């Protein structure tokens, strides 16, 4: 007799849908609840980042990088200034490096908090999301203390920072970390070891190692698949080689290596590692040093090109900068980690139930601003 198959139904998830994290459209072919094919359509937030870069000066690119990945603006700034400093051969002083690392790691915590919260929201748990946002607010307070903005900072400049950290920032950060560390355990307890959440995410959407590498998936998603790859360790930029921290790798505690639960849990572990790095960076931060010390008067990089990568909360962020010697970039390409993470959606998402597809999408932690640019 064979298996009786129903007619396939085409279902558009998005562009407006509570679980698409913005304006993404997933066109899924479904047979009942089972999804047989997923075709992502994006570009609903294509804000012409690369065109803007070809029309504004190198300094003016920084606010636009902010707006690309609006959940980890600091990390986006960081990647850009690292690339520019490499291109122009600028060395910044110790204090700047320490502040940058502190900020980037605080941003990583904030971003991962939102991601884990939203993952819970996708699975129907509303409360952990608000708890995560509550703690994220305190990180935003620290940023606000430093540069006056809550979300888009324009804080790291090529060759320095826009402002030095204010008095009391270090103490406030220590205070926050002391408050925050028990809260991570709380978040882990309510989400990670919840029986229903484990049932919903373990063994779901398994991303094998070779698939992840072939699709260019990076960051926590790649590490969850069992690949020990973190640019902070493997290709250290800034001063990351001085700090002691582990790179959490998915171990398949609740299911297979590389499932949704691993991708989610790796982020919680990374929050803890970031706390470690911040503590070290604050402890070893030099008291003196002008943050504007090596700020060039005019940004006019030599003719040439550079491809530079940094580790943002979502993975390898690459900037390809092509300079023709003028103060305006000739071509600037951002290789965004969420773009590659979303491309794997059909590969790992097809064949699961509709609810699982949204769980998988949530576990990939995409930001549409960065995908569409």
């Amino acid at each position, binding site marked *: 007799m064979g298996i009786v198959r129903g007619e396939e*139904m085409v*279902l558009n998830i998005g562009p407006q*849908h*509570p*679980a698409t994290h913005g304006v993404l459209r997933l066109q899924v072919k479904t047979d009942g*609840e089972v999804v047989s094919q997923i075709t992502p359509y994006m570009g609903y937030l294509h804000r012409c980042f690369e065109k803007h870069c070809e029309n504004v000066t190198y300094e003016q690119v920084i606010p636009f990088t902010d707006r690309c990945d609006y959940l980890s603006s600091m990390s986006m700034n960081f990647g850009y200034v690292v690339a520019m400093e490499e291109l122009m051969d600028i060395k910044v002083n110790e204090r700047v490096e320490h502040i940058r690392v502190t900020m980037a790691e605080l941003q990583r915590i904030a971003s991962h908090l939102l991601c884990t919260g939203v993952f*819970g*929201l*996708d*699975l*129907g*748990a*509303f*409360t952990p999301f*608000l*708890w995560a946002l*509550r703690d994220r607010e305190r990180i935003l307070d620290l940023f606000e203390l430093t540069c006056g903005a809550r979300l888009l900072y324009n804080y790291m400049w090529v060759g320095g920072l826009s402002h030095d950290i204010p008095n009391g920032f270090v103490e406030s950060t220590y205070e926050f970390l002391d408050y925050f560390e028990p809260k991570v355990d709380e978040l882990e307890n309510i989400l990670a070891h*919840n029986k*229903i*959440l484990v*049932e*919903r995410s373990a063994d779901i959407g398994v991303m094998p190692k070779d698939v992840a590498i072939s699709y260019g998936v990076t960051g926590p998603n790649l590490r969850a698949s069992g690949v020990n790859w973190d640019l902070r360790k493997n290709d250290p930029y800034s001063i990351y080689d001085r700090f002691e921290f582990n790179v959490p790798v998915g171990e398949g505690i609740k299911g297979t290596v590389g499932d949704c639960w691993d991708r989610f849990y790796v982020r919680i572990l990374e929050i803890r590692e970031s706390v470690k790095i911040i503590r070290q960076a604050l402890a070893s931060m030099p008291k003196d040093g002008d943050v504007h010390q090596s700020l060039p008067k005019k940004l006019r990089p030599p003719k040439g090109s550079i491809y530079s990568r940094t580790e943002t909360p979502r993975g390898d962020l690459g900037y390809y900068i092509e300079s023709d010697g003028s103060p305006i970039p000739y071509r600037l390409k951002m290789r965004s980690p969420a773009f590659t993470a979303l491309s794997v959606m059909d590969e790992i998402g097809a064949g699961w*139930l*509709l*609810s*699982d597809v*949204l769980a998988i999408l949530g576990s990939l932690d995409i930001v549409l601003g960065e995908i569409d640019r």
Partner: protein
Amino acid sequence: MTVDFIYNFLNDLLPGFLGNDLLLILAMLLPFFALFGFITIYGFGVIYAELKVSSFIQDKTGPMGQGYGFHAGKWGLLQPVADGLHLFFKEDIIPATADRPLFILAPFLIFIGMFVGIIAIPFGEAIIISDMNIGIFYILGIGSLAVIALILAGWSSNNKWALYGGMRSAAQIISYEIPAGLSLIVVILLASSLSMQEIISYQSGGIFNWIIFDNPFMPIAFIIFFISALAETNRTPFDLPESESELVAGFVTEYSGARYAFFFLSEYVNMFVISAVAATAFLGGWQSPFPNFLNTPAWSVFWMISKAFFLVFVMIWVRWTVPRLRVDQLMHLCWKVFIPIGLFNIFGVSIWTVLRG
């Protein structure tokens, strides 16, 4: 029963003042209005409770009546009133591609299903609108009407999300009727009656005579019934038919204004009905927890409502705490866990009853 009582009472009060037929209609309308008033007040209360309880769980304050002009009163107490009122005066959209008659019928059907369920719930020894000898059976049967309404809503909206919601709710509610029924059969075995009042009178004489403490099998039956009740009322972790992060709003996706308000309210009324059945069957109904203490008719209403409200509160509490199950896990839980345990429970209780004599 109550209608007869009111009829006789009115007849004594106003002998020959009104015609017999008119008096009968009046006697029927009075409980109706009382019920309607109760549901309205209960609806406002429970929606306010949902907003507030969820807010406290989530570390915020919820509606505080802050706002411009004459705001929602102290602590936002008038918030549900404003919510309801503004819904009733919104534009009523019927999509052009919808199945018009069914689309209009669905919200009324679901509301009627919930509404008539309440008449068999006893609030006191004589405070019951209709004491049927098959009360518990009647409530289960009427409760199943909701399924038809949900399928109608899902189908007639001509929207894929609504269709998913309707289909999911059909599968879910029909499945969970069985474990719920199985755990009520155990109660009926003990009380040897289908009448709500007789089940309650079986439990008279304090907290230790309640059916939940009757024998070791009963707590299991209660837990199964309560979890099935969550599924039947579409509450988290079983809110698949209207899961917000998956199906936008499920079967109510296309409903706006007053029709949506009916769906919204009927969910809460359903919660109350199911909780009241659970309180009747397992927690002694309107009986006081202490023998011969606060057992007057007025207090019996208090006990019944507070027991039911406690269970409603637990439902709200659960909703804001746990994630949602997947559709196959939902079925697995029902057919492979609850139903075998339920059957085993019936077997166990039968033996227990026989041994006890």
